[in-house]
């Protein structure tokens, strides 16, 4: 008798799951024209990126513009930026959730899904940068030969994958509960939510330590690196969240008050101040002591021996950051949506330049033997990078296309029950 009941409930569960997946497929394949245009253009970029990646995979990394002198380029620059975004997304929404800041409470899940997409992008950027992708199983603990705890890359692999699992588990748990219109078991899920806060700090600190620990590169071997990373992450992550949430507000029935967005912008202002202050501290130290180690800084901000590829970029980034800081500091510009969005765009691009190419490339210029080689990404790298960004955005789009209806209650188990009256709870 018991067995029969178990079989029946299993059958029921399978049917429910199948219905759920069918409904999600319907959800993601139906939308407005803009939605279709968005998804298909992203898909096109992904396919182009994949084709270019395949060429790189076949011929080797010689297809990129990286050399022995500058051995990390656009891929690792994007990786650094995206890890920061992932960390900031969680760091922003979860404390607000815990402190019951009502306007943000609804969007925790969405923030977490964004963090998950960012981490997927970051991991993909590392994977396309590897020379031998087929040997990546060497990195798996106990199966391969992971150099833990000495190697910071090993730490990075563990914390990033753990963060991804955490950021998939928490939203999925919450969404499943919302789908079944049940109250989540807070005693169960709260420890995980609390864990993801230090873990978010952890992923970005480990990424900073990855660069920090290299005594061979004086540009990176500065203790200020981890605080700078966190400060700049806190600027770029929330900025993109502000823009995403405005889009969500427009295309769905999720209620996001302007107050929430303005609060986030205020946080960005404080982080940008910290970011600029820490940058100022570094610049003072390098320029005032004036040792040989300031060569990389000189290359970045002034140009070194007539090599000045990055100089216009970094000054543009500085201008963008300072402008955005002022826009977010002054309440009137912060509270006006047009200037708010302008500030967000400026920050996203400015921090990308400062933390991506403006951070990775000067570490290699000049190289330990004093050689200067300027690196410019070539078409292969650009296309693959666009492809991965498009993939991340597409993943996020599809995730929230399902998550929002669950949150608003449009897509829930009661629909399923309506079709099968015998399943309604007695």
């Amino acid at each position, binding site marked *: 008798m018991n067995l029969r009941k178990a079989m029946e409930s299993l059958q029921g569960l399978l049917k429910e799951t199948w219905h759920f997946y069918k409904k999600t497929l319907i959800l993601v394949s139906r939308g407005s024209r803009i939605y279709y245009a968005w998804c298909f253009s992203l898909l096109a970029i992904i396919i182009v990126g994949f084709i270019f990646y395949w060429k790189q995979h076949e011929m080797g990394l010689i297809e990129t513009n990286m050399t022995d002198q500058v051995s990390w380029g656009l891929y690792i620059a994007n990786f650094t930026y995206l890890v920061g975004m992932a960390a900031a997304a969680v760091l922003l929404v979860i404390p607000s959730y815990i402190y019951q800041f009502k306007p943000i409470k609804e969007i925790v899940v969405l923030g977490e899904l964004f963090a998950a997409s960012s981490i997927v992008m970051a991991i993909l950027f590392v994977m396309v940068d590897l020379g031998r992708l087929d040997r990546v199983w060497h990195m798996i603990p106990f199966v*391969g030969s992971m150099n833990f705890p000495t190697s910071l890359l090993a730490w990075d692999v563990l914390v990033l994958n753990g963060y991804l699992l955490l950021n998939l588990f928490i939203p999925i748990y919450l969404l499943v509960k919302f789908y079944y219109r049940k109250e989540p078991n807070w005693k169960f899920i709260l420890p995980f939510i609390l864990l993801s806060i230090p873990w978010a700090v952890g992923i970005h600190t480990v990424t900073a330590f990855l660069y920090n620990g290299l005594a061979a590169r004086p540009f990176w071997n500065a203790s200020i690196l981890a605080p700078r990373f966190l400060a700049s992450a806190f600027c770029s992550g929330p900025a993109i969240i502000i823009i995403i949430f405005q889009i969500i507000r427009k295309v769905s029935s999720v209620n996001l008050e302007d107050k929430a967005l303005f609060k986030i912008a205020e946080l960005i202002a404080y982080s940008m101040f910290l970011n600029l202050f820490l940058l100022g501290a570094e610049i003072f130290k390098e320029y005032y002591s004036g040792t040989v180690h300031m060569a990389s800084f000189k290359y970045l901000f002034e140009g070194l021996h007539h090599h000045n590829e990055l100089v216009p970029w970094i000054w543009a980034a500085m201008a963008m950051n300072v402008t955005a800081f002022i826009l977010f500091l002054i309440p009137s510009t912060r509270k006006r949506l047009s200037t708010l969005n302008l500030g967000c765009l400026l920050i996203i691009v400015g921090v990308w330049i400062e933390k991506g190419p403006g951070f990775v490339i000067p570490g290699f210029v000049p190289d330990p*033997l004093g050689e200067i080689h300027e690196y410019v990404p070539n078409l292969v790298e650009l296309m693959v990078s666009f492809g991965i960004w498009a993939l991340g955005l597409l993943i996020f789009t599809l995730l929230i296309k399902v998550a929002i209806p669950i949150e608003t209650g449009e897509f829930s188990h009661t629909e399923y029950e309506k079709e099968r009256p015998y399943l309604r709870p007695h």
Partner: protein
Amino acid sequence: MSNKNYTRREFIRNLSVTALAGLSLPLLSSCSREEAEDFLQKHFLEMTGEEKKRVIAKLEQRYLEQYGRKFQISTQEALPETLWGYGLELSRCVGCRRCVYACANENNTSRYARQLHWIRVLRLKRGNLINLEDSEHYYTPETVPEKGFIYLPVQCQQCQNPPCVKACPIHATWQEPDGIVVVDYNWCIGCRYCIAACPYKGRVFNWAEPNLPKDEVNPNVHYLGNRPRTKCAVEKCTFCIQRVRQGRYPACVEACPTGARKFGNLLDPKSEIRYIIERKRVFRLREELNTESKFYYFFES
């Protein structure tokens, strides 16, 4: 990596890797046409004697097909009571670069796309030694030495405290008991973290399949040293591991026309390198980074 949980780890490893392989092989075809055996090949330090022999035989077969020469791949272990050290007399280096090309010929490095050199000779103005920022790598005078300049060859310093070994996430590079830092070319995943970590730019990367002309190969190789590499593996000077473990001088020592390069066993009090350290004024590059390099530079005049 001890042998304690050997069979259990091996079982888990083979099971999970086969699962991964089954899922991913269609997507991630290997970089060159290697079989699944290459995919599952173990780390060199974990291979048993039998497995090493099989791998060596497979590689010898492959090199025969590729280069038309019969290779002799040695896996000779470190000699007991040895710690190799190198001495370079800066007053005698004339910057002729014969060491660079002797090394390339001995060690089967790629000749073009990309050309890989394990030794780099820097030219510095007289009056300047430690600040390498003003060095010139690409000098092409008609004759050397040029007046007013000194020459500083740099290669992997085989540090006793190597930052590259610390950085490698998968133990693909390690320090052998006789002090040589080696790379298992079949284990390296090409993340290039070690290249970022090296303060001497001793490590170079095979960005593509190496281009090695058939008539220039050296068939006397060591598995951890100068056997021809494949694409996307890091390589570096190994103090000619295939030579020194048999008591022969490295190729660069033999090539130098002024006799500026010296080599020996640091643990042998009668060796040349010990004589240099005890009687000459030696220094090492970037000593403040505590890498404890075993490459001693010294001056006579």
